[in-house]
């Protein structure tokens, strides 16, 4: 089975307006093919980006903060506002050696903004489930 059908079988269908033979508009639940293709591409891209970041974190090039930011679909600017920490500091904390020395109070703010526990924030999951 294609990846497109796989993700579109998951969850309830949405409704689409269709023009029927009598010239009336009716609601139907078949997703258009173009939508399936593009959504599948975006979902698979999101997954692969997340997986790449996870590998980089394990290799010690990025901090786990990067991973959780990507997981929650945030941009650095949004994360900075959510945690109440200046953007340049947030960007600095993407470096693993800086992140390792962070005070618990700062970690706490990130954990609240990203809705993960402080323990989780220090590492990345071993395998993406």
């Amino acid at each position, binding site marked *: 089975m294609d990846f497109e059908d796989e*993700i*579109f079988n*998951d*969850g*309830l*269908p*949405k*409704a*689409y*307006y*269709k*023009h029927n033979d009598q010239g*009336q*508009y009716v*609601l139907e*639940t078949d*997703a*258009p*093919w*173009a*939508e399936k*293709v*593009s*959504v599948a*591409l*975006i*979902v698979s*891209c*999101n997954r692969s*980006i997340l997986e790449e970041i996870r590998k980089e974190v394990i290799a010690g090039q990025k901090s786990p903060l990067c991973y959780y930011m990507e997981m*929650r*679909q*945030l*941009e650095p*600017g*949004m*994360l900075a*506002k*959510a*945690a109440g920490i200046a953007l340049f500091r947030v960007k600095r904390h993407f470096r693993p050696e800086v992140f390792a020395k962070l005070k618990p109070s700062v970690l706490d703010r990130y954990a*609240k*903004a990203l*809705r993960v526990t402080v323990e989780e924030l220090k590492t990345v999951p071993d395998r993406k489930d």
Partner: protein
Amino acid sequence: MTTELAANGKPFVHNHGAHCETAVTSALFRHHGVNVSEPMVFGIGGGIFFGYLPFLKLTHLPISAFRGKPGSVFRKAAKRLGADFVTKKFRDPKKGTEELRRVLKTGQIVGLATNLYWLPYMSERHRWNFSGHNIIVVREIENGFRVSDPTIGDMVDCTVEGLEQARFVPGPLNPRGYMYYNKTINHHPDLRQACIKGMKDTCNLMLRIPLPIFGVRGIRFLAKKVMQSPDKLGFQEACRHLAGTVRWVEETGTGGAGFRYMYAAFIQEASELFGSEDLVRLTHDMTAIGDTWREFSVMSARIIKQRNRPEATFTNAGGLMLKCADLEEAFFRDLQKVVKKLKA
């Protein structure tokens, strides 16, 4: 379509709709005895729009919105139909949940703005960080709420924590527990007057905003970006951007072709309401525009799939978009003239 009882024993009918905000507004009106369909709310609220926002990004992709600002359709439609809604926002999540419980006990159904990413019943393909998703809470159940989400076919249960997380998200996207419920309603709204107001508003929004990223000019702007994208970004990244655009056209609860089919349904209903031949003609025009947008998304999907069709290129996809822009400009100029002739 399913029916359930609200907290005060009044039956609530759950209808499947295409778009969250219009369907929620229409369901609220219908629950209080005013029969307004979803396309009608969309047209009256002046929902159709275009805006390309390259400085706002979601999952590294720019936003191209095919509808007005979240919340504006509800606000405008309620005003034009003469209904008064109580709206509330909260700083404290606990207070937000308590207030929701209190209002539900009085027998009201409540509309909420939530974040799609955090709604627990959403599947992965719908989960993205967008804070303007509207749902209706019908009543409280044991450790949860009974939720009618019009974009999915059935009523669902949602836990208290899940709903609270979706209503209060840290950061700039916070919906702040935005909730609304009916205070007074006009049982015999002047639909004709409301339709005229909505159409005029729409024409102004599409044609007269003096910025290159909104309205018809915005479509042309994005078309040029699409044409240049393979040179500027590389093929893979350009595909991703194109897929992002197609997602805004077809997914995101547009009811197909970037709300254009829904708007055609509205014009069709309005033509029956006014008995106007001009509007019947405009219905066909709008359907043609919708078909062109659908053609654009199919063309884009072919590019993404690399089906080796010689005509499937970024230039042609951008060209189709330019065609849409031309058609839409002609359509809205025509609509402007037709609206002037309509009598309320």
